[in-house]
């Protein structure tokens, strides 16, 4: 029995990286799996990668996509220090008020502010995007089957439509988008951004970096979850083994 338990625990531990993010693979489009630093029992975000991903978000995605559940102070998770976060936040203006005169006013963003939204409301967003509404990205990797793998392949999945596909006006063909016709045009290309750390900036690397960043935005407690989980599982395993040994000894002389 002990062997069975140990084998089961080992099998569980080993099978974790292969566990799908959701059993509901809603679309019939197969999404290839990528290697991510945050996969696996001890997986962590690669600080340099998520910082690069934030740069991509800030310089490219943020023009149309919000990140409403992320505050500037949360960027400390990515490895930025307090001063850097204050400087980053001060680059944005947010609405505040009313002040003592009863007037609304603009002020520089603080670390406690959420990242400002690109459009004041859905109607404004649609008006600026040919009727399409760019979704908020705070939870995007958890809200799509395939998670960060899907986001990565979506970024890279723009192709010329097959000859037999009749494209709707204003839409773009994408191999991985459900239905293949997506309002967003191809955004990421080789050399789109230049990284301060000199990391490769081909389209695939940029897509990978921004997908990793978005997974952090969706699941900011992932590292705490992984490290707490390992301790909880080890404790439970030891507890269970002790309980088994106790049970075996207690039942030794009881035919059953």
């Amino acid at each position, binding site marked *: 029995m002990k062997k069975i338990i140990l084998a089961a625990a080992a099998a569980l531990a080993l099978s974790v990286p292969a566990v*799908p*993010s*959701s059993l509901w693979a809603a679309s019939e489009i197969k999404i290839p799996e990528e290697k991510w630093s945050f996969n696996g029992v001890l997986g962590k975000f690669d600080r340099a990668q998520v910082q690069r991903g934030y740069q991509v978000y800030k310089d490219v995605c943020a023009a149309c996509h919000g990140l409403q559940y992320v505050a500037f102070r949360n960027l400390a998770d990515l490895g930025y220090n307090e001063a850097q976060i204050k400087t980053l936040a001060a680059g944005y203006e947010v609405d505040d008020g009313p002040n003592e005169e009863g007037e609304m006013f603009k002020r520089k963003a603080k670390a406690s502010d959420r990242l400002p939204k690109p459009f004041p409301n859905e109607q404004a967003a649609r008006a600026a995007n040919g009727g399409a509404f760019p979704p908020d990205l705070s939870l995007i990797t958890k809200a799509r*089957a395939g998670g960060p793998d899907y986001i990565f392949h979506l970024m890279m999945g723009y192709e010329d439509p097959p000859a037999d596909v009749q494209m709707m006006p204003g839409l773009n063909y994408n191999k991985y988008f459900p239905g293949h016709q997506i309002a967003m045009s191809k955004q990421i290309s080789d050399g789109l951004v230049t990284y301060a750390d000199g990391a490769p900036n081909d389209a695939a690397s940029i897509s990978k970096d921004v997908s990793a960043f978005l997974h952090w935005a969706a699941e900011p407690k992932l590292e705490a979850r992984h490290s707490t989980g390992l301790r909880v599982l080890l404790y439970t395993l030891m507890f269970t083994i002790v309980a088994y040994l106790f049970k075996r000894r207690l039942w030794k002389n*009881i035919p059953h």
Partner: protein
Amino acid sequence: MSTNTSTEKSAIRKAYEWHEARLPLVNWLDHNLGTKYPVPRNLNYWWNFGAIAMFMLGVMIASGVFLAMNYTPHVSLAFDSVERIMRDVNYGWLIRYMHANGASFFFIAIYIHILRGMYYGSYKPPREVLWWMGILIYLVMMATGFLGYVLPWGQMSFWGATVITNLFSAIPWVGESIVTLLWGGFSVDNPTLNRFFALHFLLPFVIVALVFLHIWALHVPGANNPLGIDAAPSDKIPFFPYFVVKDVFGLGVFILIYFAVVFYAPNMLGHPDNYIKANPLVTPAHIVPEWYYLPFYAILRAIPDKLLGVIAMFGSILIMFVLPWLDKHPVRSANFRPVFRVFFAIWVVNAVMLGWCGSQPAEGIALILSRIGAFWYFAHLIIVLPLLSWLETPKPLPVSISQSVLKAAE
């Protein structure tokens, strides 16, 4: 103890006896879950799941209370308050993932517990009322799980609530009024969310009360056992310490798997669409309930007529109330009923297949299989079981548990 003579009791002992004479709480526990509750010695590990289910009920109530402290039942704030729990509340992510996956593992434990009862004939005389209490618990669990899934106010919450509440509109005459009552208005909206939250908080305590009745009904005849024959007093050993320790070990194995999912695949059993805030104007491509309802959802959709589909779906659970009279074979344990055993296995596979059908769009092969599966679900219960009650010749039963146990030990 030995240092205290009967004339020289410690102050604690005296206080304990004083209290016990007025409210015999410890004595009551000892009789019901302690040394004075005799249990057949031959129970196997399938008998662990009752205790495991009780533990999960405790986990759900404990984690649920803390979630309720941080949750806002309002259509424009519910989704945001869940995200606040996930991001800003200390260990909120852990409590929420424990609760969301805890529901799944509660159902896993309950399904194993139910199937164990069906395999070993635990519903047969004299345990019919015990079986009824179990079905009631399961029904309230299903209601509670459904109500809880609506609370995060994601897309699947909203559309699941819309689909399931709409089922009641199939009831002739009063259907529409019932739906209006469930909604608190003319669509799934803020009043719906408010009453669902109130009921989701209430029903677990109804389950606790039903668990009391379930255990009470268990202790009248005592536990069934893998041989399915009545246990003589000499076949029994006290619940404490023997089965308490065995249950603790089984629970350890179970929560090992539970924690592996909570910490390493917390969204595996959920639907990605529920991380999209509810939008009454956008219908998801494919509305599916939580996995534990899928076989019943498949039965619902297998039947083209809405009212008949609803009747079949609720009937598939309510029919379990008369299971003790559909299967009147005098032998309880399937171990001695080779034909029943095969049919039971087919029925379980059929139910799993129905679950798969429920997860697929209701078309093509999934629809055909769900019709065959729904037919067989009922045919097994209504036709096969009564026939086997008449026709099946069981294998010879052992004279007693002791005889069987001792023979196996040799």
